[in-house]
């Protein structure tokens, strides 16, 4: 990039913020307000609620897979700044998401990304040897299960719809949502 590469990220971010403020495009208060709202509202419990609804409502599941943004809006998540694409695990297919170019994923539904998701080994190995990567996360798949990797290179953001665990027939929707983990939504865990 430029001569700024060796500066700490925080310094470069602050310099950019100052340029925006000088140009009259934003104020410090607006930037702080945006970030604090993002971090307050962005959490994996949001994605988990969508998953639990899909497990209990076939019509919602169909909507979630066809139009993730519309499905999000039904539960009040109507301010997604991306196109949400949801990919469903099944007995025949396991999905896992990655961003090889940076660390894109649906932050408002999953919360801040884990450090490993941004790491070079995860980003480079997941597209090349996903079964090995998944095994390191404790996900061992049979040869009869195909693996689909989704590399988030565009304005679309991917989320995995995990398979509903066996023996959860009697659980209510909020109890089901509590079973759904962040790694389950990324595809690095079975729920």
């Amino acid at each position: 990039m430029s001569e700024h590469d060796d500066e700490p990220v925080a310094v470069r971010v602050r310099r950019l913020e100052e340029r925006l403020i000088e140009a009259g495009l934003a104020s410090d208060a607006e930037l702080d307000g945006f970030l604090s709202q993002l971090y307050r509202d962005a959490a994996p419990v949001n994605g988990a609620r969508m998953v639990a609804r899909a497990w209990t409502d076939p019509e919602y599941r169909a909507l979630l897979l066809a139009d993730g943004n519309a499905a999000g809006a039904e539960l009040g998540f109507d301010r997604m700044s991306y196109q949400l694409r949801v990919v469903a695990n099944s007995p025949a297919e396991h999905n896992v998401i990655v961003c090889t170019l940076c660390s894109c994923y649906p932050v408002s539904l999953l919360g801040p990304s884990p450090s490993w998701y941004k790491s070079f080994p995860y980003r480079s190995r997941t597209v090349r040897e996903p079964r090995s990567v998944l095994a390191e996360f404790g996900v061992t798949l049979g040869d009869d299960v195909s693996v689909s990797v989704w590399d988030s290179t565009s304005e679309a953001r991917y989320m995995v719809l995990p398979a509903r665990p066996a023996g959860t027939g009697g659980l209510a929707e909020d109890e089901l949502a509590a079973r759904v983990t962040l790694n389950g939504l990324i595809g690095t865990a079975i729920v």
Partner: protein
Amino acid sequence: MIAVGTRVRARNIDRDGHTRLPRYVRGHTGEVVAVLGEWALPDDSVRGETRLEPCYAVRFPAAELWGSGDHTVTVDLWESYLERA
């Protein structure tokens, strides 16, 4: 617009500056599995130019990308990154 099901090849280009065409798919053949929408081409956006282009989800077999492996990798690619295979 390229239809779902069409076989496409990621162009083997190496532009100066920013691009969201990952190096590992360049020159490889896959299949369009979804038309995502029309979005600004990032290569131009970084220069302050807005050029809307269709963007597609393109699925590549691992064996095509790496010579081995039984998984698939689906990558979102703008139309000018692609040519018909």
